[in-house]
């Protein structure tokens, strides 16, 4: 079938999204896409999610920090942001979601907002809550491993 003339094609907006997790979690594009669809459907219903037509594009990262591009129909960026905000966990792993910016093309989106090299990561031991604990370090943030899960801390807590 002949493709549509340019003035009749869909117009899109591309949201640069940053996803953070605890360091032991691992999430994939498919799992995130599924959660996004669920979130949109639960929040704005079938009609709203069809309008927004949310699609997850490239998905990169690891060890607690991921970057991705989410496509939304132009004019539906508000509901798209809202649906992203409602993603609380991916496959049972709690996640933090932040929209870094919105662009009109994938390329602009990637060039402007993505690909910020993640800072140095590593492991060290810190004194926390009266005991010596292992912690994952990224830049000046530390995720301290406690028996009942991780606690988010910062360099400043140990100075």
């Amino acid at each position, binding site marked *: 079938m002949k493709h549509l003339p340019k003035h009749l094609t869909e117009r899109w907006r591309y949201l640069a999204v940053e996803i*953070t*997790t*605890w360091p032991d979690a691992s999430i994939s594009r498919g799992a995130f896409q599924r959660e996004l669809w669920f979130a949109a459907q*639960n*929040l*704005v219903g079938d009609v709203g999610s069809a309008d927004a037509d949310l699609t997850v594009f490239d998905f990169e990262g690891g060890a607690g920090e991921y970057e991705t591009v989410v496509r939304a129909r132009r004019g539906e*960026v*508000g*509901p*798209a*942001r*809202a649906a*992203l*905000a*409602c993603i*609380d966990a991916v496959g049972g792993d*709690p*996640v*933090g*979601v*932040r*929209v870094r910016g919105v662009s009109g093309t994938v390329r602009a989106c990637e060039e402007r907002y993505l690909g910020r090299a993640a800072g140095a990561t590593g492991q060290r031991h*810190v*004194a*926390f*809550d*009266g*005991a010596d604990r292992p912690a994952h370090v990224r830049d*000046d*943030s530390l995720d301290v491993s406690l028996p009942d*899960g*991780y*606690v*988010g*801390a*910062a*360099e*400043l*807590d*140990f*100075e």
Partner: protein
Amino acid sequence: MYEAVHPYPDGRSTPARYAREAARGGFEGVVVRGRSAVDEGCGAGRADGGDGGGGDGDNGDTPAGPFGAVADRYGLDVVDAVEVSGDDRSSVSGAIGNYRPKTTLLLVRGGDDDVNRLAVEQVQVDVLTRPMRGDGGFNHVLAKAARDNGVRVEFDLSSVLRRDGGHRVQALQDLRLLRKLVTKFDVPYVVSANPRSHLQLRAPRELAALGEVVGFEAAEIREGLAEWGRLAARNRERSSDSFIAPGVQRGRYEEDHRGTR
């Protein structure tokens, strides 16, 4: 715009980590809700808010309050607060009197109708948080009392953000009723996502977008987030040494310079 967070051990992140992530998300400040622990034997030591790190030094009495070092590092305002939670009138009332002089913001967590009523009738209380929690409720009587006493009512977005199904429907219905009362009686309000870890923080734009979907106006959400900052500024001014009464303060106008000019 400010977010009011639950620090470790109540939540899963330290105030410093919250401040770091909030600054990246575009917040101007963070309110750290220390817990009063009324129902756990009145631990007076909690009044300084959640000091998450293991015996770190940033909780000292710096001029900028207990979180001065955190505020300096991340370039945003960090406000100390105590959230009083209790199940009966007398313990909550005692905690209010106890913590008011020690903290910048005093919040009372909604409980049953009795606690809600007490909170909105106390001028000393800054914010009634989660008024719809548990078996408590909010009505026109409480709304008028809150307005007259300047007690802010909190719109809690946590259930909308992090629950689904019946719980979320219930939360949305509660928000709708609260919004109706707040608009009708012009009750002052604050907005918070009640994050319990830095992962649960959501940026102001995201919260505004969510608010628009569930029936708020984006401006209302921003107002509610900014109100925390205005409250903190007001209370700091009132507790400063130069403050005498609203509109009256000790200044540099006492000397008479007319003769010397």
